[in-house]
């Protein structure tokens, strides 16, 4: 698929790194996030009442509030304010909401000049392109590309090369327009209902000039931008720059209670001192519904309205870093949260164009300053798109796809969503199934029917599963320290059997009584394909199967982090609260569990002495969201290993994502970052370990040396054993 190249990757990764550093400097970051979240929940809950309050506040201040049903309605009002019949100059500061309205085109059709004054927006206006990022609209443009554009369009007398030269050139050009301007249009990051104060978060100063330099101020904003009071702005002012571009605070946070009192001046006036010039200024705030009120009523989309448009979810996203917001975006919005915005504003078809780029890795969940469960919104929208899908292959796959979906998800999604059945068949028919699958004919069929990329290695199924091996076995531990169920996830059970056997061995060596019962798969596979009904039935079966073990005092130990994330995060949406709580509190990632055993007095003598062995570790994206990656490092270091960790957000494989032909290139581009980190001089010779199954698959394809799960390092593999 089309990617925007190096500029996007470099810039988003810079922002993302900046975010980590900047939020680390904020005292009580998590508390401030919770405050922000609470304010938004309350504001959206009371929105109709806040709109009424704001209307009277704005009118008392001497302005007008117009509530527009949709874009056409908003544009009609704006056109009336600007006035037809006379050509006006309208200067704009950056506003994604105005992009949503396409207000520029509406005004230009009436003969007005509309000028974007934000330098990035202006570059795009000159280039006739759309924003590729909600905060840094021209992020996909390199300095050289901008220089070339200006050269072509303006033929400047002096050649433009440096960022300074380009900035000075743009400022002078735009300064002339601002001087001439009749009308200033801004967006609004936040609006306080109690005072009518608008917060504008900027750095260039153009938003200040847009307001101060004109006698008519139009602010366009989604209805969701309203917060109850001025004091409610505080957490957002502290979070927005840090979350977005990694700035503690932007150069300017304008707190405007329009119409502002600044004198309306004519630059050529040589007579009148500023203090004697009046501030005769019109103010209109145009609030836009455009689908938002319906989103407010939608239990799954409502959270989208808490979004403060900071761009953290774009910058943290490994796929976005590679492809940019033109590919990973809809009509207006881009990045992880764009699925919610575009589904609510434009419709499912627009959201469907890019929704599959979200792999559910969940790195955006921690990054979001208001804790929006962005992966869930993406999953729900995917599910709704599936419901409307029509497929004519049902006769081919009915046996292979015993799912509970009401609609008919695309064949590829049903195949990956029902991977449990595929794995079960694969094991039953192994080794024949493995030989068959690898034939050229099979690979061509898999490619043509299911879009499975022929460049990917397929998993090798084992006839004797982990459950077959351990289900009826008595534990070897007489006086157990703890009792546990080792959860036999799909891959450990059918493909990575040895890993499972090693886990049992390590746990028993540490005094744990281990059972490996027959348990269904977690539902991660169907959930990732947007098959929520099927995922829910998996969740219910898991809960029912494991409940007696938990009641019997057993812990649930999980090797695959994406399954642990299901138990702890997604099951909250799929099970009743008590069932979710029971499973979530009793589940542990395997290395987290080993860490706990050692911390609580288990003897580490049976574990292998690392003896300074150098290890390069890539933890799993969802594992990091759950904050259980540090345990692996701690255990390995305690056993004497020397550990270096990767710092990429995701490996790029992300379950089935990397197997799909249409995403193979993106997956490999994301993977390249990890390859570079693990082939650098300081890591080249290190043993590679990773926690996630798909990370291991991806690393196996990226590197010459074979990666392994950290649990494998804890067992002595010397021949003397």
């Amino acid at each position: 698929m089309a990617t925007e190249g190096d500029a996007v990757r470099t810039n988003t990764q810079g922002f993302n790194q900046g975010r980590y550093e900047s939020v680390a400097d904020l005292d009580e970051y998590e508390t401030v996030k919770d405050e922000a979240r609470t304010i938004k929940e309350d504001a959206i809950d009371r929105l109709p009442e806040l709109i009424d309050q704001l209307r009277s506040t704005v009118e008392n201040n001497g302005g007008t509030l117009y509530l527009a049903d949709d874009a056409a309605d908003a544009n009609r009002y704006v056109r009336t304010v600007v006035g037809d019949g006379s050509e006006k100059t309208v200067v704009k500061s950056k506003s994604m909401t105005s992009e949503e309205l396409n207000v520029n085109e509406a005004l230009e059709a009436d003969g007005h000049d509309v000028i974007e004054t934000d330098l990035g927006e202006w570059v795009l206006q000159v280039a006739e392109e759309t924003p590729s990022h909600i905060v840094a609209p021209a992020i996909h443009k390199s300095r050289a590309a901008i220089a070339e554009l200006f050269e072509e369009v303006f033929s400047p007398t002096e050649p433009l090369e440096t960022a300074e030269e380009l900035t000075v050139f743009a400022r002078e050009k735009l300064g002339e327009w601002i001087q001439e301007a009749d009308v200033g249009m801004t967006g609004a990051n936040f609006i306080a209902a109690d005072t009518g104060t608008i917060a504008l978060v900027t750095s260039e100063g153009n938003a200040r000039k847009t307001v101060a330099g004109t006698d008519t101020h139009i602010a366009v904003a989604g209805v969701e931008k309203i917060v109850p009071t001025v004091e409610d702005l505080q957490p957002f002012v502290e979070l927005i720059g840090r979350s977005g571009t990694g700035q503690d605070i932007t150069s300017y946070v304008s707190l405007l209670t329009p119409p502002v009192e600044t004198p309306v001046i004519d630059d050529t006036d040589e007579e009148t001192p500023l203090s004697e010039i009046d501030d005769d200024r019109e103010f209109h705030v145009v609030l836009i519904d455009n689908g938002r009120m319906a989103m407010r009523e939608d239990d799954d989309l409502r959270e989208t309205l808490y979004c403060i448009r900071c761009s953290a979810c774009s910058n943290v996203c490994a796929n976005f870093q590679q492809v940019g917001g033109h590919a990973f975006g809809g009509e207006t919005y881009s990045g992880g949260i764009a699925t919610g915005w575009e589904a609510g504003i434009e419709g499912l078809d627009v959201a469907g164009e890019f929704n599959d780029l979200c792999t559910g890795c969940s790195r955006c969940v921690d990054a979001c300053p208001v804790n929006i469960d962005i992966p869930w919104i993406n999953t729900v929208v995917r599910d709704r798109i599936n419901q409307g899908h029509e497929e004519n292959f049902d006769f081919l796959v009915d046996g292979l796809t015993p799912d509970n979906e009401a609609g008919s998800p695309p064949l590829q999604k049903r195949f990956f969503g029902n991977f449990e059945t595929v794995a079960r068949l694969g094991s039953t028919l192994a080794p024949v199934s493995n030989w068959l699958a690898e034939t050229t004919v099979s690979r061509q069929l898999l490619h043509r029917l299911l879009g499975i990329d022929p460049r990917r290695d397929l998993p090798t199924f084992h006839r004797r599963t982990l459950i077959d091996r351990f289900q009826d076995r008595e534990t070897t531990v007489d006086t157990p320290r703890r009792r546990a169920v080792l959860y036999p996830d799909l891959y450990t059970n059918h493909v990575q059997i040895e890993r499972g056997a090693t886990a049992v061995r390590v746990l028993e060596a540490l005094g744990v009584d281990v059972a490996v019962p027959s348990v269904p798969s977690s539902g991660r596979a169907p959930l990732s394909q947007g098959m929520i009904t099927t995922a829910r039935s998996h969740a219910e079966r898991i809960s029912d199967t494991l409940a007696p073990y938990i009641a019997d005092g057993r812990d649930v130990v999980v090797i695959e982090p994406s399954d642990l994330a299901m138990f702890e995060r997604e099951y909250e949406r799929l099970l009743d609260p008590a069932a979710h709580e029971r499973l979530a509190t009793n589940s542990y990632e395997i290395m987290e569990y080993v860490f706990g055993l050692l911390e609580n007095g288990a003897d580490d003598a049976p574990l292998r002495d690392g003896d300074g062995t150098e290890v390069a570790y890539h933890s799993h994206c969802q594992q990091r969201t759950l904050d259980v990656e540090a345990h692996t490092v701690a255990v390995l270091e305690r056993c004497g290993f020397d550990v270096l960790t990767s710092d990429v957000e995701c490996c790029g494989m992300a379950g089935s994502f990397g197997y799909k032909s249409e995403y193979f290139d993106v997956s490999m581009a994301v993977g390249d970052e990890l390859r570079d980190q693990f082939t650098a001089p300081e890591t080249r010779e290190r043993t590679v370990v990773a926690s996630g199954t798909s990370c291991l698959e991806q690393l196996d394809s990226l590197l010459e040396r074979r990666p392994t799960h950290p649990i494998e390092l804890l067992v002595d593999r010397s021949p003397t054993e």
Partner: protein
Amino acid sequence: MSTEQQLFAESLESVGVETRRVPPAGVTDAIAELLVGDTVAVALDRDDVSIPDAVTVDPTPAELHAAQTGVTPAAFAIADYGSIVLPSTAVGSELVSLYVDHHIAIVDEQDIVADMEHAFDRFDREMPDAYGSAIVATGPSATADMGSLVTGAHGPSTVGVVVVEG
């Protein structure tokens, strides 16, 4: 110096703002040291400080347009961010602090608050009456839209702060 003042000084340095901390009588010289080229100002509203004679107080729009430096009072400052709060007033503070290459803000050391929480307490108290609008300004204007960070976009490229003791 109090903790807030110390913190404010450090924060100003980290956001690239030059500072002078002077008694009221020293304000004139401090401004003179910081200004560049033709300078305009809004009246400072206190009797114990004065502005250099060469500076045009309450300029016409044409004088503002020709000026390189603008001097305005700040309502207060926020220590941990190094921010100055610039009220938008009927005498044109917003214009004088914005339509220039160099901005000099005058702030009373009694008006330095510790953090954003204190700042918003103060907005809540003052905004409706003392001033309707204000800009929380931190460092010079900047953009990264042209390929790397450039200070001085549409607003000032340098900012100086004179902290008045007492």
